[in-house]
């Protein structure tokens, strides 16, 4: 009887994390569970904005990792999150379906796509895409911006949906994070964006105020920031 209940009484750590962190955090979660026997970690992966809405409406979580500083600033401003630390950087890149049917080899070639799918401006990847295309329009002229805009077929609400449309061949090109492109293993080809036109996506992490497992939450954040944690993130394409 005692043994059974000791086994059942595992500590449950809940981590809310941006969609683009899925693969890296699942790896980190496994090593965290090994380091803390009796702890079980459960992840909620979604668009950063969607996760923020869930926390604002009372979802119980211990740790929050966002794909942009804006989301965690808003949570801290509302008194829902403690101090945030940047733990990773990600680079937006262009992806095209394997075989590159539209013949796109650089950012300047984007108007060659017949159909583009981008992130909605409400989510971080969409906001970064807007900034990249604005910078590109300044460089390549307003006709570039107008041409790209006319090719946009859909504004998806998280980055994995954007990627899926390219992997299916439904979109000729899209802008996603380098890490997502790596995760799709061969279904897409990656084209880098010139650094002077690109943005750097910063990922902050914070313990949430009133976290049910505050101690474990701090331990998880420490793991993410540790050299071992950083190595896992680097393996998944984060900088």
């Amino acid at each position, binding site marked *: 009887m005692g043994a059974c209940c000791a086994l059942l009484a595992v500590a449950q750590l809940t981590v809310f994390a941006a969609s683009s962190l899925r693969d890296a955090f699942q790896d980190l979660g496994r090593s965290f569970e090994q380091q803390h026997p009796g702890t079980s970690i459960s992840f909620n992966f979604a668009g950063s*904005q969607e996760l923020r809405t869930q926390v604002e409406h009372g979802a119980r979580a211990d740790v929050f990792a966002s794909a942009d500083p804006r989301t965690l600033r808003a949570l801290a401003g509302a008194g829902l999150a403690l101090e945030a630390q940047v733990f990773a950087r990600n680079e937006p890149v262009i992806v095209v379906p394997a075989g590159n049917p539209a013949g796109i080899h650089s950012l300047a070639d984007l108007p060659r796509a017949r159909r583009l799918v981008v992130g909605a401006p409400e989510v971080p990847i969409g906001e970064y895409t807007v900034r990249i295309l604005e910078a590109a329009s300044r460089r390549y002229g307003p006709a570039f911006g107008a041409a790209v805009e006319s090719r*946009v077929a859909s504004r998806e*609400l998280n980055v994995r949906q954007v990627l899926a449309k390219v992997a*299916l061949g*439904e979109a000729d090109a899209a802008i996603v994070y380098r890490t997502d492109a790596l995760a799709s293993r061969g279904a897409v080809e990656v084209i880098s964006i010139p650094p002077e036109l690109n943005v750097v996506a910063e990922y902050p992490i914070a313990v949430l105020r009133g976290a049910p497992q505050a101690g474990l939450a701090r331990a998880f954040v420490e793991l993410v920031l540790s050299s071992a944690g950083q190595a896992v993130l680097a393996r998944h394409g984060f900088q």
Partner: protein
Amino acid sequence: MRSRAWDAAQLAAIGLLVSFLLLPVASLGLTLSWDELVTGLRHPLLLPAVRLSLTTSASSLTLVVVLGSLVAWWIARHAGRVSRLIESVTQLPAVIPPAVAGVGLLLAFGRRGLFGAFLERHGIAIPFTTPAVVLAETFVSAPFFIQAAIAAFRRVDENLIAVARTLGASPFRTFLRVAVPLSAPGLVAGAAMSWARSLGEFGATLLFAGNLTGRTQTLPLAVYTAMESDLRAARALALVMVAASFGLLLVLRRMSSEGRDA
């Protein structure tokens, strides 16, 4: 005593279920101040979404009613295995989750899809266009109309059909002038259910038609998009949908009660 306990159980069930069903709808309205509603109604996503929802659901309704009536009439007039098989096929979309329907539509009509690859060679691209929204809505809403139409057509008195035919009316004229008017209340109720379903369509549209303001972003998708940034706007949009659906429900109730009186 036993019957009183039975009454109490029914009353308790009514109280519980009715308040549970009403609470979310009431909360949408009650937690929104007038100013917030006005701001939400001016949200740039609202007008294009309303316009798109109305035009696409009207188009899909036309498709469903015209084609569905012919199919339902044939099924109602034929017994046997083929008829039952066709009836089952027309009911299939009602049991498929909409997200699955969306993936299926993409794999069928997408660029590399079974039929889409053929269309692509002839310069026709359907996914992520307004016609894709209409197809998604037609797919998910057709079963509701067809089911109601079959039931209504089966209630038409066989003798009246026979009389019309003896008096020299062609089968088409008999269908149009006898069967359709006699089945009108059932057909209208089915059409209203079908329309409500396509107005509320979300999953299949999001996956097959994408999310682009003015082209494929219908009202439910606009609510979902607004949730990402502005909960107030999402609630105002949601209220517009509730009002539209409630209006539809009232029309439906009135028509079905007229049908009963007739």
